[in-house]
Protein backbone atom coordinates (compact mmCIF):
# COMPACT_ATOMS: atom_id res chain seq x y z
CA UNK A 1 0.00 0.00 0.00
CA UNK A 2 1.37 3.40 -0.92
CA UNK A 3 0.41 6.08 1.58
CA UNK A 4 -0.88 9.52 0.69
CA UNK A 5 2.22 11.67 0.80
CA UNK A 6 2.28 14.23 3.61
CA UNK A 7 2.75 17.72 2.09
CA UNK A 8 6.19 19.33 2.03
CA UNK A 9 6.88 22.77 3.54
CA UNK A 10 9.90 25.03 3.24
CA UNK A 11 11.15 26.45 6.52
CA UNK A 12 12.53 29.97 7.03
CA UNK A 13 13.98 31.11 10.35
CA UNK A 14 14.84 34.56 11.72
CA UNK A 15 17.85 33.95 13.98
CA UNK A 16 17.17 37.15 15.94
CA UNK A 17 15.38 40.44 15.46
CA UNK A 18 17.20 42.69 13.02
CA UNK A 19 18.00 39.81 10.65
CA UNK A 20 15.79 38.52 7.85
CA UNK A 21 14.24 35.05 7.71
CA UNK A 22 16.52 32.60 5.97
CA UNK A 23 15.74 29.27 4.33
CA UNK A 24 16.99 26.40 6.52
CA UNK A 25 15.39 23.29 5.03
CA UNK A 26 12.04 21.58 4.78
CA UNK A 27 9.59 19.45 6.75
CA UNK A 28 6.61 17.22 5.99
CA UNK A 29 3.36 18.06 7.75
CA UNK A 30 -0.37 17.68 7.18
CA UNK A 31 -1.14 21.38 7.74
CA UNK A 32 0.44 24.74 8.52
CA UNK A 33 0.09 24.42 12.28
CA UNK A 34 1.78 21.02 12.38
CA UNK A 35 4.43 22.29 9.95
CA UNK A 36 5.29 25.11 12.37
CA UNK A 37 5.58 22.69 15.28
CA UNK A 38 7.67 20.25 13.26
CA UNK A 39 9.93 23.09 12.07
CA UNK A 40 10.42 24.20 15.68
CA UNK A 41 11.34 20.66 16.77
CA UNK A 42 13.60 19.93 13.81
CA UNK A 43 15.35 23.27 13.23
CA UNK A 44 15.40 25.18 16.54
CA UNK A 45 16.53 22.73 19.21
CA UNK A 46 19.38 25.03 20.24
CA UNK A 47 17.93 28.51 20.12
CA UNK A 48 18.49 29.01 16.39
CA UNK A 49 15.55 31.37 15.98
CA UNK A 50 12.95 33.77 17.30
CA UNK A 51 10.51 33.46 14.40
CA UNK A 52 9.63 30.76 11.85
CA UNK A 53 7.85 30.93 8.50
CA UNK A 54 6.59 27.80 6.78
CA UNK A 55 5.55 27.93 3.13
CA UNK A 56 4.02 25.08 1.10
CA UNK A 57 6.85 23.97 -1.22
CA UNK A 58 4.34 23.76 -4.06
CA UNK A 59 3.62 27.49 -3.67
CA UNK A 60 7.17 28.51 -4.61
CA UNK A 61 7.87 29.64 -8.15
CA UNK A 62 11.55 29.36 -8.98
CA UNK A 63 13.64 30.65 -11.86
CA UNK A 64 14.92 28.01 -14.24
CA UNK A 65 18.62 27.20 -13.63
CA UNK A 66 18.99 26.08 -17.26
CA UNK A 67 17.95 29.57 -18.35
CA UNK A 68 20.01 31.35 -15.68
CA UNK A 69 22.54 32.71 -18.20
CA UNK A 70 19.91 34.56 -20.29
CA UNK A 71 17.71 35.41 -17.32
CA UNK A 72 20.43 37.23 -15.41
CA UNK A 73 22.35 38.39 -18.45
CA UNK A 74 21.14 42.05 -18.40
CA UNK A 75 23.06 42.73 -15.17
CA UNK A 76 26.47 41.65 -16.40
CA UNK A 77 27.25 44.51 -18.82
CA UNK A 78 25.81 47.40 -16.79
CA UNK A 79 28.95 48.28 -14.94
CA UNK A 80 27.71 51.89 -14.60
CA UNK A 81 25.41 50.59 -11.87
CA UNK A 82 28.42 50.21 -9.59
CA UNK A 83 30.02 53.10 -7.70
CA UNK A 84 33.53 52.25 -8.90
CA UNK A 85 32.47 53.13 -12.49
CA UNK A 86 32.67 56.85 -11.64
CA UNK A 87 35.95 58.72 -11.23
CA UNK A 88 36.06 61.21 -8.40
CA UNK A 89 39.31 63.14 -7.77
CA UNK A 90 41.08 62.15 -4.61
CA UNK A 91 40.95 65.73 -3.26
CA UNK A 92 37.17 65.42 -2.94
CA UNK A 93 37.70 62.82 -0.24
CA UNK A 94 35.54 59.87 0.62
CA UNK A 95 32.23 59.75 -1.22
Amino acid at each position, binding site marked *: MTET*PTPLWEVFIRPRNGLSHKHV*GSVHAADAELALQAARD*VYTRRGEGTSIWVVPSAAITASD*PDAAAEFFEPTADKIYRHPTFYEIPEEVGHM
Partner: protein
Amino acid sequence: MYSQGLIGADGRTEESPEFLEAFQRRIDAEEKIEPKDPMPAGYRRTLVRQIGQHAHSEIVGMLPEGNWITRAPTLKRKAALLAKVQDEGGHGLYLYAAAETLGVSREEMTEELLAGKAKYSSIFNYPTLSWADIGAIGWLVDGAAIMNQIPLCRCSYGPYSRAMIRICKEESFHQRQGYEIMLTLCRGTPEQKAMAQDALNRWWWPSLMMFGPHDKDSAHTEQSMKWKIKRFTNDQLRQKFIDATVPQAEFLGLTIPDPELRWNPDKNDGRGGYDHGPIDWDEFWRVVKGHGRMNRDRLAARRKAHDEGAWVREAALAHARKRKARAMAAE
Protein backbone atom coordinates in the same frame (compact mmCIF):
# COMPACT_ATOMS: atom_id res chain seq x y z
CA MET B 1 28.87 5.26 9.15
CA TYR B 2 28.49 6.75 5.95
CA SER B 3 30.97 5.47 3.47
CA GLN B 4 28.98 2.27 3.83
CA GLY B 5 26.36 4.25 1.94
CA LEU B 6 28.42 3.63 -1.17
CA ILE B 7 28.18 -0.15 -0.96
CA GLY B 8 26.30 -1.21 -4.07
CA ALA B 9 26.12 2.37 -5.34
CA ASP B 10 25.74 2.51 -9.07
CA GLY B 11 27.74 5.44 -10.43
CA ARG B 12 27.35 4.38 -14.07
CA THR B 13 26.19 7.16 -16.25
CA GLU B 14 25.41 7.54 -19.92
CA GLU B 15 25.68 11.22 -20.72
CA SER B 16 27.73 12.61 -23.59
CA PRO B 17 31.44 13.22 -22.91
CA GLU B 18 30.85 16.98 -23.37
CA PHE B 19 28.14 17.00 -20.70
CA LEU B 20 30.30 15.01 -18.29
CA GLU B 21 33.32 17.23 -18.91
CA ALA B 22 31.31 20.40 -18.32
CA PHE B 23 29.96 18.90 -15.08
CA GLN B 24 33.44 17.84 -13.97
CA ARG B 25 34.76 21.37 -14.62
CA ARG B 26 32.15 22.76 -12.23
CA ILE B 27 33.11 20.16 -9.62
CA ASP B 28 36.83 20.84 -10.07
CA ALA B 29 36.16 24.58 -9.64
CA GLU B 30 34.57 23.69 -6.25
CA GLU B 31 31.18 24.96 -7.43
CA LYS B 32 28.29 23.48 -5.44
CA ILE B 33 25.64 21.57 -7.38
CA GLU B 34 22.08 22.60 -6.50
CA PRO B 35 18.88 20.51 -6.91
CA LYS B 36 17.66 21.79 -10.27
CA ASP B 37 21.14 21.93 -11.88
CA PRO B 38 21.96 19.51 -14.68
CA MET B 39 23.83 16.51 -13.26
CA PRO B 40 24.81 13.04 -14.51
CA ALA B 41 22.31 10.30 -13.68
CA GLY B 42 25.07 8.37 -11.90
CA TYR B 43 25.82 11.35 -9.63
CA ARG B 44 22.13 11.64 -8.73
CA ARG B 45 21.81 7.89 -8.11
CA THR B 46 24.93 7.74 -5.97
CA LEU B 47 23.73 10.64 -3.83
CA VAL B 48 20.17 9.32 -3.43
CA ARG B 49 21.64 6.07 -2.21
CA GLN B 50 24.23 7.59 0.09
CA ILE B 51 21.98 10.28 1.60
CA GLY B 52 19.08 7.82 1.93
CA GLN B 53 21.28 5.30 3.76
CA HIS B 54 22.70 8.05 5.91
CA ALA B 55 19.15 9.13 6.85
CA HIS B 56 18.11 5.54 7.59
CA SER B 57 21.21 5.16 9.81
CA GLU B 58 20.18 8.16 11.88
CA ILE B 59 16.64 6.81 12.28
CA VAL B 60 17.64 3.23 13.09
CA GLY B 61 20.45 4.65 15.25
CA MET B 62 17.83 5.89 17.69
CA LEU B 63 16.97 2.28 18.64
CA PRO B 64 20.11 0.98 20.39
CA GLU B 65 20.32 4.10 22.55
CA GLY B 66 16.58 4.44 23.03
CA ASN B 67 16.88 1.06 24.74
CA TRP B 68 18.58 2.79 27.71
CA ILE B 69 16.51 5.96 28.14
CA THR B 70 14.28 4.46 30.81
CA ARG B 71 17.27 2.88 32.56
CA ALA B 72 19.71 5.80 32.55
CA PRO B 73 21.44 5.95 35.96
CA THR B 74 20.66 9.61 36.75
CA LEU B 75 18.23 12.29 35.66
CA LYS B 76 21.12 14.23 34.07
CA ARG B 77 22.13 11.22 31.97
CA LYS B 78 18.51 10.55 31.02
CA ALA B 79 17.97 14.14 29.86
CA ALA B 80 21.20 14.08 27.83
CA LEU B 81 20.36 10.74 26.24
CA LEU B 82 16.85 11.89 25.34
CA ALA B 83 18.29 15.02 23.73
CA LYS B 84 20.83 12.94 21.81
CA VAL B 85 18.24 10.50 20.51
CA GLN B 86 16.01 13.43 19.54
CA ASP B 87 18.97 14.91 17.63
CA GLU B 88 19.41 11.63 15.71
CA GLY B 89 15.75 11.80 14.70
CA GLY B 90 16.27 15.40 13.57
CA HIS B 91 19.36 14.43 11.59
CA GLY B 92 17.37 11.74 9.82
CA LEU B 93 14.79 14.35 8.86
CA TYR B 94 17.36 16.87 7.53
CA LEU B 95 18.84 14.09 5.44
CA TYR B 96 15.55 12.76 4.05
CA ALA B 97 14.78 16.35 3.02
CA ALA B 98 18.19 16.64 1.31
CA ALA B 99 17.58 13.37 -0.57
CA GLU B 100 14.11 14.53 -1.59
CA THR B 101 15.63 17.45 -3.51
CA LEU B 102 16.98 14.78 -5.89
CA GLY B 103 13.51 13.59 -6.83
CA VAL B 104 12.89 10.68 -4.45
CA SER B 105 10.11 10.93 -1.85
CA ARG B 106 10.44 10.24 1.87
CA GLU B 107 7.61 7.72 1.57
CA GLU B 108 9.57 5.80 -1.08
CA MET B 109 12.74 5.82 1.01
CA THR B 110 10.82 4.66 4.10
CA GLU B 111 9.21 1.84 2.14
CA GLU B 112 12.65 0.70 0.93
CA LEU B 113 13.99 0.66 4.48
CA LEU B 114 11.00 -1.23 5.88
CA ALA B 115 11.12 -3.74 3.02
CA GLY B 116 14.76 -4.46 3.91
CA LYS B 117 15.96 -3.20 0.51
CA ALA B 118 17.75 -0.08 1.73
CA LYS B 119 20.75 -0.42 4.01
CA TYR B 120 21.76 1.47 7.10
CA SER B 121 25.06 1.47 8.98
CA SER B 122 26.17 -2.00 10.15
CA ILE B 123 27.01 -0.59 13.60
CA PHE B 124 23.34 -0.43 14.65
CA ASN B 125 22.94 -4.17 14.31
CA TYR B 126 24.89 -4.72 17.52
CA PRO B 127 23.05 -4.88 20.88
CA THR B 128 23.47 -2.40 23.74
CA LEU B 129 23.97 -4.75 26.66
CA SER B 130 25.02 -2.44 29.48
CA TRP B 131 24.92 1.25 30.41
CA ALA B 132 28.62 1.47 29.45
CA ASP B 133 27.56 0.78 25.85
CA ILE B 134 25.87 4.18 25.81
CA GLY B 135 29.22 5.72 26.73
CA ALA B 136 31.07 3.65 24.13
CA ILE B 137 28.56 4.53 21.42
CA GLY B 138 28.84 8.26 22.05
CA TRP B 139 32.62 8.12 22.23
CA LEU B 140 33.39 5.64 19.42
CA VAL B 141 30.37 5.45 17.14
CA ASP B 142 29.66 9.18 17.15
CA GLY B 143 33.41 9.81 17.03
CA ALA B 144 33.70 7.69 13.89
CA ALA B 145 30.61 9.34 12.44
CA ILE B 146 32.13 12.80 13.01
CA MET B 147 35.35 11.70 11.23
CA ASN B 148 33.23 10.70 8.27
CA GLN B 149 30.87 13.64 8.36
CA ILE B 150 33.26 16.57 8.66
CA PRO B 151 34.55 16.09 5.09
CA LEU B 152 30.92 15.64 3.95
CA CYS B 153 30.31 19.29 4.95
CA ARG B 154 32.36 20.08 1.82
CA CYS B 155 30.47 17.62 -0.39
CA SER B 156 29.78 18.98 -3.88
CA TYR B 157 26.00 18.62 -3.52
CA GLY B 158 24.66 21.76 -1.81
CA PRO B 159 21.68 20.38 0.17
CA TYR B 160 23.75 17.44 1.52
CA SER B 161 26.61 19.70 2.47
CA ARG B 162 24.26 22.13 4.27
CA ALA B 163 22.56 19.29 6.17
CA MET B 164 25.99 17.96 7.20
CA ILE B 165 27.05 21.35 8.56
CA ARG B 166 24.03 21.41 10.89
CA ILE B 167 24.59 17.79 11.88
CA CYS B 168 28.29 18.22 12.66
CA LYS B 169 27.56 21.19 14.92
CA GLU B 170 25.20 19.01 16.94
CA GLU B 171 27.27 15.79 16.99
CA SER B 172 30.08 17.20 19.02
CA PHE B 173 27.91 17.08 22.16
CA HIS B 174 27.15 13.44 21.39
CA GLN B 175 30.77 12.38 21.45
CA ARG B 176 31.62 14.43 24.54
CA GLN B 177 28.68 13.08 26.55
CA GLY B 178 29.76 9.54 25.62
CA TYR B 179 33.35 10.11 26.67
CA GLU B 180 32.17 11.66 29.93
CA ILE B 181 30.14 8.52 30.68
CA MET B 182 33.25 6.39 30.04
CA LEU B 183 35.36 8.67 32.21
CA THR B 184 32.87 8.49 35.08
CA LEU B 185 32.81 4.68 34.88
CA CYS B 186 36.61 4.47 34.69
CA ARG B 187 36.96 6.62 37.80
CA GLY B 188 34.36 4.53 39.64
CA THR B 189 34.55 1.09 41.22
CA PRO B 190 36.62 -1.73 39.64
CA GLU B 191 33.33 -3.28 38.50
CA GLN B 192 32.35 -0.05 36.73
CA LYS B 193 35.74 0.19 35.07
CA ALA B 194 35.39 -3.44 33.94
CA MET B 195 32.03 -2.54 32.42
CA ALA B 196 33.68 0.26 30.44
CA GLN B 197 36.44 -2.10 29.25
CA ASP B 198 33.84 -4.68 28.21
CA ALA B 199 31.96 -2.07 26.19
CA LEU B 200 35.18 -0.95 24.48
CA ASN B 201 35.99 -4.60 23.69
CA ARG B 202 32.67 -5.09 21.96
CA TRP B 203 32.41 -1.72 20.13
CA TRP B 204 35.99 -1.18 18.95
CA TRP B 205 36.03 -3.43 15.90
CA PRO B 206 32.49 -2.66 14.73
CA SER B 207 33.40 1.04 14.99
CA LEU B 208 36.39 0.52 12.68
CA MET B 209 34.09 -1.27 10.23
CA MET B 210 31.88 1.81 10.08
CA PHE B 211 34.33 3.35 7.63
CA GLY B 212 33.49 0.68 5.10
CA PRO B 213 35.68 -1.85 3.25
CA HIS B 214 39.40 -1.34 2.56
CA ASP B 215 40.11 1.03 -0.33
CA LYS B 216 41.20 -1.83 -2.57
CA ASP B 217 37.77 -3.44 -2.09
CA SER B 218 35.76 -0.24 -2.35
CA ALA B 219 34.78 -0.10 -6.00
CA HIS B 220 32.87 3.16 -5.88
CA THR B 221 35.29 5.31 -3.93
CA GLU B 222 37.16 6.53 -7.01
CA GLN B 223 34.15 7.93 -8.86
CA SER B 224 32.74 9.44 -5.67
CA MET B 225 36.05 11.16 -4.94
CA LYS B 226 36.17 12.52 -8.49
CA TRP B 227 32.68 13.96 -8.06
CA LYS B 228 33.72 15.28 -4.62
CA ILE B 229 30.90 13.46 -2.90
CA LYS B 230 33.68 11.91 -0.82
CA ARG B 231 36.87 13.73 0.11
CA PHE B 232 38.90 10.98 1.80
CA THR B 233 39.07 7.23 1.29
CA ASN B 234 37.73 4.73 3.82
CA ASP B 235 41.23 3.71 4.97
CA GLN B 236 42.37 7.33 5.37
CA LEU B 237 39.40 8.14 7.60
CA ARG B 238 39.78 4.91 9.58
CA GLN B 239 43.44 5.71 10.23
CA LYS B 240 42.57 9.23 11.41
CA PHE B 241 39.99 7.77 13.77
CA ILE B 242 42.42 5.25 15.24
CA ASP B 243 45.14 7.85 15.71
CA ALA B 244 42.71 10.19 17.47
CA THR B 245 41.10 7.53 19.65
CA VAL B 246 44.04 5.51 21.03
CA PRO B 247 45.31 8.35 23.27
CA GLN B 248 41.74 8.91 24.52
CA ALA B 249 41.57 5.24 25.55
CA GLU B 250 44.95 5.58 27.28
CA PHE B 251 43.64 8.54 29.27
CA LEU B 252 40.72 6.41 30.42
CA GLY B 253 43.16 3.66 31.41
CA LEU B 254 41.43 1.23 29.04
CA THR B 255 43.05 -1.23 26.64
CA ILE B 256 42.14 -1.26 22.95
CA PRO B 257 41.29 -4.90 22.15
CA ASP B 258 43.90 -5.23 19.41
CA PRO B 259 47.15 -7.00 20.39
CA GLU B 260 48.75 -5.85 17.13
CA LEU B 261 48.16 -2.14 17.75
CA ARG B 262 51.61 -0.43 17.61
CA TRP B 263 52.87 3.11 17.24
CA ASN B 264 54.65 3.44 13.91
CA PRO B 265 56.70 6.63 13.64
CA ASP B 266 56.97 6.30 9.84
CA LYS B 267 53.21 6.30 9.23
CA ASN B 268 51.31 9.33 7.89
CA ASP B 269 54.32 10.73 6.00
CA GLY B 270 56.58 10.57 9.04
CA ARG B 271 54.13 12.18 11.45
CA GLY B 272 53.52 8.81 13.02
CA GLY B 273 50.39 6.75 13.49
CA TYR B 274 49.14 3.40 14.70
CA ASP B 275 49.41 0.11 12.87
CA HIS B 276 46.46 -2.13 13.64
CA GLY B 277 45.55 -5.80 13.38
CA PRO B 278 43.34 -7.27 10.64
CA ILE B 279 39.64 -6.43 10.57
CA ASP B 280 37.21 -9.34 10.40
CA TRP B 281 35.58 -8.52 7.07
CA ASP B 282 33.57 -11.76 7.12
CA GLU B 283 31.77 -10.43 10.16
CA PHE B 284 31.28 -7.07 8.44
CA TRP B 285 29.67 -8.58 5.35
CA ARG B 286 27.55 -10.91 7.45
CA VAL B 287 26.11 -7.91 9.28
CA VAL B 288 25.70 -5.82 6.11
CA LYS B 289 23.85 -8.70 4.47
CA GLY B 290 21.34 -8.87 7.30
CA HIS B 291 22.75 -11.52 9.61
CA GLY B 292 23.98 -9.40 12.51
CA ARG B 293 22.60 -9.99 15.98
CA MET B 294 20.06 -7.19 15.80
CA ASN B 295 19.17 -6.80 12.10
CA ARG B 296 15.78 -8.47 12.43
CA ASP B 297 14.97 -6.68 15.67
CA ARG B 298 15.80 -3.26 14.27
CA LEU B 299 13.61 -3.65 11.20
CA ALA B 300 10.79 -5.14 13.24
CA ALA B 301 10.92 -2.13 15.58
CA ARG B 302 10.85 0.33 12.64
CA ARG B 303 7.94 -1.52 11.01
CA LYS B 304 5.99 -1.58 14.26
CA ALA B 305 6.50 2.16 14.78
CA HIS B 306 5.51 2.88 11.18
CA ASP B 307 2.39 0.69 11.27
CA GLU B 308 1.25 1.88 14.67
CA GLY B 309 1.74 5.50 13.61
CA ALA B 310 -0.31 5.12 10.41
CA TRP B 311 -3.56 6.24 12.04
CA VAL B 312 -1.85 9.43 13.28
CA ARG B 313 -0.66 10.35 9.79
CA GLU B 314 -4.11 9.57 8.33
CA ALA B 315 -5.91 11.54 11.04
CA ALA B 316 -3.64 14.57 10.58
CA LEU B 317 -4.32 14.61 6.84
CA ALA B 318 -8.08 14.11 7.35
CA HIS B 319 -8.12 16.96 9.86
CA ALA B 320 -6.24 19.23 7.43
CA ARG B 321 -8.72 18.41 4.66
CA LYS B 322 -11.69 19.10 6.93
CA ARG B 323 -10.32 22.44 8.07
CA LYS B 324 -9.58 23.46 4.51
CA ALA B 325 -13.12 22.54 3.42
CA ARG B 326 -14.58 24.53 6.33
CA ALA B 327 -12.44 27.56 5.53
CA MET B 328 -13.54 27.42 1.89
CA ALA B 329 -17.22 27.08 2.86
CA ALA B 330 -16.92 30.12 5.13
CA GLU B 331 -15.56 32.32 2.31
